């Protein structure tokens, strides 16, 4: 059958659909990441003296640290699934742009981590007794920005780490320094949002998140083809 090769975004969406279909059929990664995330939230609560540090001060940091680690688990799987039967070779010979593979993987990962956050944010509000109320929309916005940056970086490093001798160790080692501005900015922004502080105090952290997302989404899309075999 003679067909026209799909454009950049159309091809990316096909790659994303493929990854999401695998995840929907197996559900293994999502379930394990959600359980890991919930466990993290619970264990952190007992690691602190709740009479010394208020739950309101503690919760944003716990949320973002746990989310980062949980995200890494999901991201590792992104290219890990392509190892079996050299499935990745199939993607490489497909008549699509190399950038489409990265964007497709990133879209699937973004949907994956958003789904994790949809469960994680109400869970942290429940366990830490947070007054989400009016802050929920703004908090969702911060979460979206943080997840976007995390996925942009994590998808690229997952593609690199999967071909190394110690992929499980290398992915966090490469990614975590890059997650620092994300974790710091989103934890600081959420703390201020939950405490009902004025928006001007939140704005510098949002600016960092937005700039980070733009710079690294572009840089990683451009860098990805360089990580593939010629």
């Amino acid at each position, binding site marked *: 059958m003679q067909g026209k090769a799909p454009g950049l975004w159309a091809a990316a969406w096909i790659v994303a659909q493929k990854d999401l279909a695998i995840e929907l059929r197996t559900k293994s990664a999502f379930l394990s990441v959600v359980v890991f995330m919930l466990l993290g939230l619970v264990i952190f609560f007992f690691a602190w003296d709740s009479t010394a540090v208020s739950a309101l001060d503690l919760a944003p940091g716990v949320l973002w640290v746990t989310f980062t680690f949980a995200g890494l688990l999901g991201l590792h799987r992104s290219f890990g699934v392509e190892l079996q039967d050299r499935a990745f070779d199939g993607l490489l010979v497909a008549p699509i742009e190399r950038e489409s593979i990265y964007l497709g993987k990133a879209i699937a990962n973004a949907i994956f981590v958003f789904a994790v956050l949809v469960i994680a944010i109400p869970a942290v509000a429940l366990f830490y007794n947070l007054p989400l109320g009016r802050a929920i929309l703004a908090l969702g916005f911060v979460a979206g920005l943080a997840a976007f940056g995390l996925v942009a*970086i994590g998808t*690229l490093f997952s593609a*690199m780490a999967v*071909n*190394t*001798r*110690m992929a499980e160790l*290398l992915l966090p*080692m*490469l990614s*975590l*320094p*890059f997650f*620092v*501005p994300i974790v*710091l*900015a989103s934890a*600081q922004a959420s703390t201020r949002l939950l405490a009902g502080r004025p928006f001007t105090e939140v704005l*510098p*952290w949002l600016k*960092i998140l937005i*700039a*980070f997302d733009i*710079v*690294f989404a572009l*840089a*990683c899309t451009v*860098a990805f083809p*360089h*990580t593939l*075999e010629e």
Partner: protein
Amino acid sequence: MTSVAAPPPSSANSTRVSTLPVFDWWTALGVLGVLGAIVRIIFFTPIEAAQGAAQKIYYIHVPAALSAYLALIVCALTSIMYLWLREERADRMAESAGEVALLFTTTVLSTGPFWGKPIWGTWWTWDARLTLTLFLWFVTAAYLVLRGAVDDPTMRARYSAVLAVLAALLIPFIHLSVYLFRTLHPMPIVLKPSAPSLPREMLITFSISSIAFLFFCVMLMRSRYRLALLRQRTELAE
């Protein structure tokens, strides 16, 4: 001086490569320069009135930081060159600069606490520049671990070059976010837009030490680069 024992040359270029010594008089000069600077710091520089002898760490701490920055800049630039030109020598230079950068960031991080304890009253604090240096150390260490974890030389070169370029983009973000978080570090007293506010004798020691450290840093990168060439030559010969 250590000379390289050359296996039978296979081409004119490899003959040239194999005869380059890893250590030579320039390297020795680099070591002597740093030793000379240390002698001047200890015996021929006045003790600062407010901070006492602890301030002398400044003459090692800051030049080591400058050397680390130099090595990191070389690593980032040669990585960009590699991605652009696919020139193997650029990758070897990046590798050499990465290792030297780790040495100097380790020096900065280990001398800092000895100055911090008597002056700030604490070995460690989450100050902006301290945190940035710590993360530079983490990224450099990850860079070297990544290099060690990939067997295929071309893939290793591409992966590490991509990481180095992204790390260069990351630095302003870490700097900005930890700066917004909190800072305790003194503002620069020499490398600032206005004239340096260091007394003349101290400024001379600082300048000597900086030049000695930067020269030593360049010599180390040069030796490490030659070692990388030698390794490649040995691998080809095997």
